[in-house]
C-alpha cells in the first residue's frame, strides 16, 4: 500500500476484544496458522480479572529471528471493542494500521492522520449471513481472521486445516466457519490493496517445536513425575496447572480394568489446607503437589516452615502474578522471589526452580519431585503468568524412559531390620540428609513422631539448646548439599569476554537474549548467565566475582533477585545494577537495552567491553 520497504515475518498485531465473546479461539487460530507456516510467533493474553464484558487484548508478535519476547510498537490493531477504541487507536505506531468494524462510521475524534484505516463491516456482514444471535457474535471474530489472512498473506488452506482439526467430531460446524473466513477474505479482495508491506512468508524455522502453555507443561510434568496426589485451591494464574494434571491423569491414569483412578485430586477449602494435604501425602510416601500464586504462598507460609523443619518433601508451583496483595491478578511479575526463598517464620530457606520455557516447566516438575524427596524439603517451581497462561513456542517435551524416580533416603522393612536403633535425624552420611521411614513399614522399628517442635536426633522433643542448634546446623549442611543437586545455571560463554555481565532468569530470558543480540550488532559485548535454581551454586558465584558489573534483570520493583544474591553470596551491592520491569507486562528487549545502555554510558570507559 504505502510503498515502504517490505517487512517479512517481523510485526506485531494486537486484537482488542470484549471478554467472553469467543474471540480467544479465533485469535488462537490466527497465531497457530502462522506457527504452522513455520514462522516464530508469540502471543500474549492481556486480560482483565473478569469473566464477561471488560476489554481484553491479545498481542501477537511475529519474528523471523525467533525473538519470542514481547515487543513494543503495534503495527496492526484489530479493533472489535468500541469501549477501548480511543486508546487502541492511540496505541498504533505511526504508519501502522487500524482494522475496525465499519458497520458504523468512525467518529471524527477517532481519525489519526498518521495511521491507515481498514474498515470491514463485521457486524453488518454477520447480520446478513447468519440468523442466530450467538453465531452473529462468534463469526465476527472468524471474519476478521479471514480479512487478516489476505492482508498478511496467511495461507488459506492452513486455516482450513486448523478448523477441521478444531471441529473434529463436530464436522457440521466446519462449513459455517469456512464461510465466515471467506467473507473476510472476499471483503479485502474487493475493497483493499493486499498484502500489506509487513506480512507472513512460509519458512521452516520451527522444525520440531511445539506450542503449549507453561501451566499445561507443568501439569503434564507432574503426571510424568509420578505425582499421585494433588490438592489445590483455585487462583489465577495457577488454576490451569492442576486442570492440566486432571485432564492428563484422566487420560493416562485411569485403570483400564477397574476404572479406578491412579491419582487423587482434591479441591481444598483454601491454600492452607491444600499445602497441608500435600505435606500429609508426601509424609506418607506419595508424590504430591499443589499449585498457587503469590497470595496462596503467603497463606502457605506456616506449613512451608513445618515442611522445612520437619523435613517433609513438598512440591509447590508458584505461578507468579502482579502483587502486592491482590495486585493485578491477571498480569505477570517475578515478585515472589523473596517470599518463596525464605517463606515462614524462623530461619528457613527453600529450594527454588526457575523454568523459562514450557519444556523447562515440564522438566522442572521432574526435578522438583526428585529434589524434594532427595532433600526432604519444600521445592518451589517459580513460573509466572506470562509463561503459565500464554502459548509459547517451545522445544518438544522430552522424557528419558531410563530416568528413575529418585525417592531419596527412605528405609524399608529389610533395612530397618538391620538397624539397632533408628534415628530419624541422625546424619549418617554427613551430607545433612537423614533417613526417613513411612508409616506402616515395620511392626516395631522405624516409627517416630514428626513435629514442628525442636527434637533430638531420635525425633524426641527437646528444648536442649545444644541439640536444637546441632539440628539447625545440620539443616545448613543439607542446604550446602542442595547446591550441588539443583540444576546448574546456563552460562552463555565458555570463558569471559567482557567485564560486564547480565544475569536473568525465568521469562526474562526471551527479551534478554534479544537484547544481547542487539548489543552484539552494536559491537557491545556482554557475558550472560541464566539462573535456573536457588540455592546458587559455584558457577553463579564465579560469574559475579569475575565481572566488574553485573546487570540483574528481573520483573519486580524491589530487585528481589539482586537482594538474594547479596544475601546469599555476600556480593558488593555496587557491583549489581538492576534492570527492572514491573508494570505487569512481560519485559521487552528495548526496555532492557535502554536501562543497560544508560548505565554503560554513565560508567567509566573501563567498564566498557574490552573488544
Amino acid at each position, binding site marked *: 500500500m504505502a510503498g515502504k520497504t517490505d517487512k517479512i515475518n517481523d510485526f506485531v498485531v494486537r486484537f482488542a476484544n470484549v471478554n467472553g465473546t469467543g474471540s480467544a479461539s479465533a485469535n488462537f487460530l490466527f497465531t497457530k496458522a502462522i506457527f504452522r507456516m513455520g514462522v516464530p510467533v508469540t502471543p500474549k493474553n492481556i486480560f482483565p480479572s473478569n469473566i464477561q464484558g471488560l476489554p481484553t487484548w491479545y498481542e501477537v508478535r511475529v519474528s523471523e529471528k525467533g525473538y519470542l519476547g514481547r515487543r513494543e510498537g503495534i503495527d496492526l490493531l484489530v479493533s472489535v471493542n468500541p469501549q477501548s477504541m480511543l486508546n487502541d487507536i492511540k496505541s498504533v505506531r505511526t504508519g501502522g494500521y487500524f482494522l475496525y468494524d465499519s458497520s458504523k462510521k468512525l467518529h471524527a475524534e477517532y481519525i489519526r492522520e498518521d495511521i491507515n484505516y481498514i474498515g470491514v463491516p463485521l457486524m453488518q456482514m454477520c447480520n446478513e449471513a447468519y440468523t442466530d444471535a450467538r453465531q452473529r457474535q462468534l463469526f465476527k471474530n472468524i471474519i476478521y481472521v479471514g480479512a487478516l489472512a489476505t492482508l498478511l498473506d496467511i495461507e488459506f488452506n492452513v486455516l482450513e486445516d486448523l478448523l477441521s482439526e478444531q471441529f473434529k467430531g463436530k464436522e457440521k460446524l466446519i462449513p459455517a466457519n469456512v464461510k465466515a473466513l471467506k467473507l473476510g477474505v472476499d471483503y479485502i479482495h474487493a475493497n483493499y490493496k493486499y498484502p500489506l508491506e509487513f506480512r507472513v512468508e512460509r519458512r521452516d524455522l520451527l522444525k520440531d517445536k511445539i506450542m503449549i502453555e507453561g501451566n499445561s507443561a507443568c501439569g503434564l510434568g507432574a503426571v510424568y513425575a509420578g505425582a*499421585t496426589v494433588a490438592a489445590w485451591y483455585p487462583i489465577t494464574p495457577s488454576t490451569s496447572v492442576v486442570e492440566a494434571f486432571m485432564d492428563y491423569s484422566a487420560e493416562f491414569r485411569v485403570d483400564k480394568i477397574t476404572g479406578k483412578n491412579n491419582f487423587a485430586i482434591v479441591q481444598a477449602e483454601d491454600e492452607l489446607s491444600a*499445602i*497441608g494435604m500435600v505435606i500429609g501425602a508426601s509424609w506418607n510416601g*506419595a508424590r504430591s503437589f499443589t499449585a498457587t500464586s503469590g497470595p496462596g504462598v503467603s497463606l502457605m507460609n506456616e506449613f512451608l516452615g513445618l515442611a522445612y523443619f520437619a523435613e517433609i518433601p513438598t512440591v509447590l508451583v508458584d505461578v507468579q502474578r502482579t502483587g502486592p496483595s491482590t495486585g493485578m491478578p491477571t498480569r505477570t511479575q517475578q515478585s515472589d522471589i523473596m517470599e518463596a526463598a525464605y517463606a515462614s517464620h524462623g530461619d528457613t530457606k527453600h529450594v527454588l526452580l526457575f523454568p523459562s520455557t514450557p519444556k523447562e516447566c515440564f522438566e522442572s516438575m521432574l526435578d522438583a519431585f526428585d529434589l524434594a524427596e532427595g532433600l526432604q524439603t519444600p521445592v518451589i517451581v517459580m513460573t509466572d503468568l506470562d509463561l503459565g497462561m500464554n502459548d509459547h513456542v517451545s522445544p518438544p517435551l522430552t*522424557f528419558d524412559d531410563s530416568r528413575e524416580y529418585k525417592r531419596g533416603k527412605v528405609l524399608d522393612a529389610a533395612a530397618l531390620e538391620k538397624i539397632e536403633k533408628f534415628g530419624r535425624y541422625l546424619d549418617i552420611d554427613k551430607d545433612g540428609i537423614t533417613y526417613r521411614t513411612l*508409616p506402616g513399614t515395620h511392626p516395631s522399628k522405624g516409627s517416630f513422631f514428626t513435629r514442628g517442635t525442636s527434637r533430638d536426633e531420635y525425633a524426641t522433643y527437646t528444648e536442649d539448646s545444644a541439640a536444637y542448634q546441632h539440628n539447625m546446623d545440620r539443616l545448613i549442611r543439607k542446604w550446602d548439599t542442595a547446591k550441588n543437586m539443583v540444576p546448574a545455571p546456563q552460562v552463555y560463554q565458555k570463558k569471559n569476554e567482557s567485564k560486564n555481565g547480565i544475569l536473568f532468569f525465568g521469562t526474562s530470558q526471551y527479551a534478554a537474549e534479544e537484547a544481547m543480540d542487539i548489543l552484539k550488532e552494536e559491537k557491545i559485548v556482554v557475558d550472560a548467565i541464566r539462573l535456573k535454581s536457588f540455592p546458587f551454586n559455584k558457577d553463579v558465584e564465579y560469574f559475579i566475582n569475575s565481572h566488574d558489573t553485573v546487570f540483574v534483570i528481573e520483573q519486580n520493583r524491589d530487585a528481589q533477585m539482586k537482594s538474594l544474591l547479596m544475601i546469599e553470596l555476600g556480593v558488593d551491592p555496587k557491583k549489581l545494577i538492576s534492570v527492572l520491569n514491573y508494570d505487569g507486562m512481560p519485559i521487552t528487549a528495548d526496555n532492557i537495552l535502554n536501562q543497560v545502555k544508560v548505565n554503560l554510558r554513565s560508567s567509566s570507559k573501563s567498564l566498557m567491553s574490552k573488544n
Partner: protein
Amino acid sequence: MTYVRPKFRHPELQKNKLGYTVDYYEGALSTLCAGCGHDSISAGIIQAAYEMNIEPHKLAKLSGIGCSSKTPAYFLSNSHGFNSVHGRMPSVATGANLANRDLTYFGVSGDGDTASIGMGQFVHVIRRSLNMTYIVMNNGCYGLTKGQDSATADQGSKNKGGNVNLFESIDLASLAIELGATFVAQSFSGDKAQLVPLIKAAMNHPGFAFINVISPCVTFNNNVGSTKSYDYVREHIGATATVDFVPEMQEISIEYGKGTHKNVTMHDGSVIQLHKLAEDWNPLDRQSAMNAVINAKAKNEILTGLLYVNPDAHDLHDIIKTSDRPLNTLTKEELCPGSEMLNEINADLR
C-alpha cells in the same frame, strides 16, 4: 519434655489376638498436669487399640497444636505420629489418607484447635467424608496459654479467674451431625466404660467418625461455676444409651439394665450394641439425633454416648474413585506414560 516410661509390667498381662499385651500400645510418659482429663482419654485409646487388635504400625496418629495435640506422644509409640500446625491436622490427615488408604487414621484435636483456628478444616474434612477417627479433647479453655476461654466454653460459664463467658458456645457434636458426619458420639473423660467402646466403634467406622469428649482442665477450668469441671459434668451427664462394640464374629454377653436394646450392624459384620436410655431417639436418624442433643441442652444436660451413626458410610476414596491399591505403592511403570506417548502429545501440539 517427653519421658520414657519404665518397661516393667506385670508378667501375666493378658495378650490380645496379635500376641501383644496392653503396654505395647502405650506411649511416652505424659507431661500434662496430674489429673488432666486428656490422660484418661489416652488410656482409653490405648485400651481400645489393644482390644481391637490394631497393628500399631498400621495406624497413623495425627494432631494439631495444644495440650490435647501433645497426647499422641503418650499412646501407641509404635505408630507413626504427626504433630502438625495449629488447627490444620485435618488437611494433613487428608493427604496422608489419600496416599495410603490401608492404614487407620486417628486424629486428636482440642477445642481451640478445632472450634476456633481449625474450624474451616474441621468442617471440610467432615464434608469430604474422610475415613478417620477424630477426637476432640474438649475442656472449654486454652490450657497451654493459661486458661483463656475457648469457643466451646458455655455462655455463662465462669473460668478460674472469675470471668464469665459472654458468648454462645459452639456445639461440635451437633455441628458434625449437621455437616453429615456418619458417626458422631459424645463422651466424658471420666467414663472409661463408655469411652472405650465408642473409640472402638469409631476406629472401625468406614467414614468420618467424630467423638467430642468433655475432658476437664484441672488447672484452669475445674472451678465452681465452670460447666466443664469434673463436678459439673458428673452432675449434669446424661446418656443416649449404654454402648458396646462387637467386632465381627465375636460372641460377647453383656448385662443390660432395663430399657430397649438396639443393635446397629455395620457392613463388615461388626455390631454396635446399644441399650437405649434416651426416649424418642433413633441413632440411625440425623434429625432424631439433633433433637436429642437440643433437648438435652435445654435441660442443662450433657448428652453422651453414640448420637448418630450411618452404617452405609462412603469415604473420600469411594467418592473420588481412587484405586484400591494405596497410591504410595504405585510404581513408575504404572504412573508414567513414557516417551512414546510424549512424542504423540508433542505431535498434537504442532
